[in-house]
């Protein structure tokens, strides 16, 4: 599927703005989980700005689709989106992680409007999210649950317990995305504790598996829509991504899992994002 040019541009521009804001918040607040926030951005942008049924005026609208960021350290990137939606104030975001802020590194559902599950301890969000789906089905509620996992947390046994249960209960009113950026704190997953072949693992656990480029909106949207057509298995979409995506000096660098930015670094990071946008705009112009 190819998105209409206008919609594709809207999503790309939104992702660009979100990434810029992630950099700004990190600079202002003193530090953040940059790498994973940047790698997950396109997945979250597609969900929040195209697919999720949410109410801009009421983050706790009962019928909203639910979202669980099981990789809770991506809270920086998630928080920026909630800010962009108007659920939280800019000045709150700028105090991210500081004493007295509503934001810790890992978002608290009781403090940050728009957060459905307090996560942070890896792998916990998967069972919680699948529980959302099972509860909704039992109660006949219309909402769909979207879950985003990191690749590193797939090491946890809890993930595979939940995967088994998700298949057993055939939870098709949820869609799970894996932000497969290949890096964890200490290095590449394949060097530390191998995850591949991931498709085979998930398929063996009874899931409908797709694997896509997690930075290509056409593919993200196609997969999200295809997932909803599958009714005999729950779906997981493995999204190949780049940790630190969009900021050249952070891309694929494990040291940018978490970090702070001084003025100059922030400027460089923003320039790198701007450069990426300029190139994309030029390519689009040429193509049209």
């Amino acid at each position, binding site marked *: 599927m190819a998105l209409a040019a206008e919609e594709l541009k809207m999503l790309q521009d939104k992702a660009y703005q979100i990434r810029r804001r992630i950099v700004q918040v990190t600079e202002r607040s003193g530090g953040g989980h940059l790498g994973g926030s940047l790698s997950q951005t396109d997945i979250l942008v597609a969900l929040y700005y195209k697919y999720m049924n949410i109410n801009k005026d009421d983050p706790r609208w009962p019928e909203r689709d*639910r979202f669980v960021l099981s990789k809770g350290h991506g809270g920086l990137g998630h928080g920026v989106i909630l800010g962009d939606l108007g659920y939280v104030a800019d000045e709150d975001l700028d105090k991210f992680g500081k004493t007295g802020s509503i934001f810790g590194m890992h978002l*608290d*559902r*009781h403090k940050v409007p728009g957060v*459905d*599950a*307090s996560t*942070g*301890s890896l792998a*916990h969000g*998967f*069972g*919680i*999210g*699948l*529980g*959302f*789906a*099972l*509860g*909704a089905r*039992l*109660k006949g*509620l219309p909402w769909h649950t979207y879950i985003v996992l990191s690749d590193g947390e797939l090491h946890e*046994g*809890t993930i595979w*317990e*939940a995967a*088994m*249960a998700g298949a*057993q*209960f055939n939870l098709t009113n949820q869609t799970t995305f894996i932000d497969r950026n290949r890096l964890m704190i200490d290095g590449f997953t394949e060097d530390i504790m191998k995850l591949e072949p991931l498709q085979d693992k998930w398929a063996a656990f009874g899931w409908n598996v797709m694997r896509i480029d997690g930075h290509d909106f056409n593919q993200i949207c196609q997969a999200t829509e295809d997932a909803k057509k599958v009714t005999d298995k729950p779906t997981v979409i493995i999204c190949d991504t780049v940790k630190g995506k969009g900021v050249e000096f952070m891309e694929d660098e494990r040291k940018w899992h978490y970090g702070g930015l001084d003025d100059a670094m922030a400027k460089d990071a923003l320039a790198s994002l701007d450069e990426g946008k300029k190139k994309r705009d030029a390519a689009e112009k040429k193509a049209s």
Partner: protein
Amino acid sequence: MAIGLTWTIDDADTMTQGEIYGEVLTRLGDENPNIVALTADLAGSTKIGKFQTKHADRFFNFGIMETNMVGFASGMAESGLIPVVSTFAAFAALRCAEHVRTDVCYNRRNVKIIATHSGTSFGPAGPTHHCIEDLAVMRAMVGMTVIAPADAYETAKATAAAIEHDGPVYIRIGRSFEPPLWKDLDFDWEIGKAITINEGTDITVIACGPAVLHAKEAAERAKQNGLSVRVLDMHTIKPLDNEAVMKALIDTRRIITAEDHSVMGGLGTAVADVIAQSGKGCVLKKLGLQDVFAAAGYPEDLQHQHKIDADGIEEAIAEVMKMDFEADEDWEDEI
């Protein structure tokens, strides 16, 4: 009659603690469509399987994956359901501890945990299947209500009260072979409110779980020796009935705690906290597992070995009656 119990259980005197909660939960499920029951391959052992016979669509067996079951329970509560999770205490409180902390307590989810085979009640299975740490662990969980009913009747009331209570509740029961303390359901029972089983003025035994019945028997024996022993059934460990502890402290100045649990972190520690912070003198003796694992064996033998049966409590009463709390003003002789 406890909250939510609008009926009686006809054959309660022939039913075990587990069977009663299974029956009660099933009947509560008739009245409340939001109750869902979750277990991990222990539907029969924990008796939560009873719920399945009547409400199969609201019963979920997770296989042997306790931690994930707790995560699911947290998520299921989002839609207004009241998940009741049941497995052995050793798994509910220890294996699942972080999931209970993060998924249930930190997320503030209305999940009920009914932990069976607690303490040394699963005696022959040995220490892997005993659980002498759960009260300590669960007391430390933010916002968790912790209950150790004395028998099947109290379990019935605790289960109904837990469903009424908005917030996480941990109920620890035994393997279900425990003799009953009560004859029927005709008594008042309230979360956080100790029950005076026996009035007394010389010494107080504060007990929970199966130790309450033992304390009652020990008090009856002590009466033959002219001692007046107060017995408090402290079925709720958290929130503790501080008022009842303070009253015992002031009235008797000698307190024994008895629990089928480690003496570290459970009922004894909770009572000691109250006494220590009161600024008032008192002799305290904590009965329970003294930083040791119990061996494999019949629960009644283990309770005897670890002095939480009537013999042990009787012995402790005699010992504590010989002790005096310090009346010194300056305690210089102690330094």
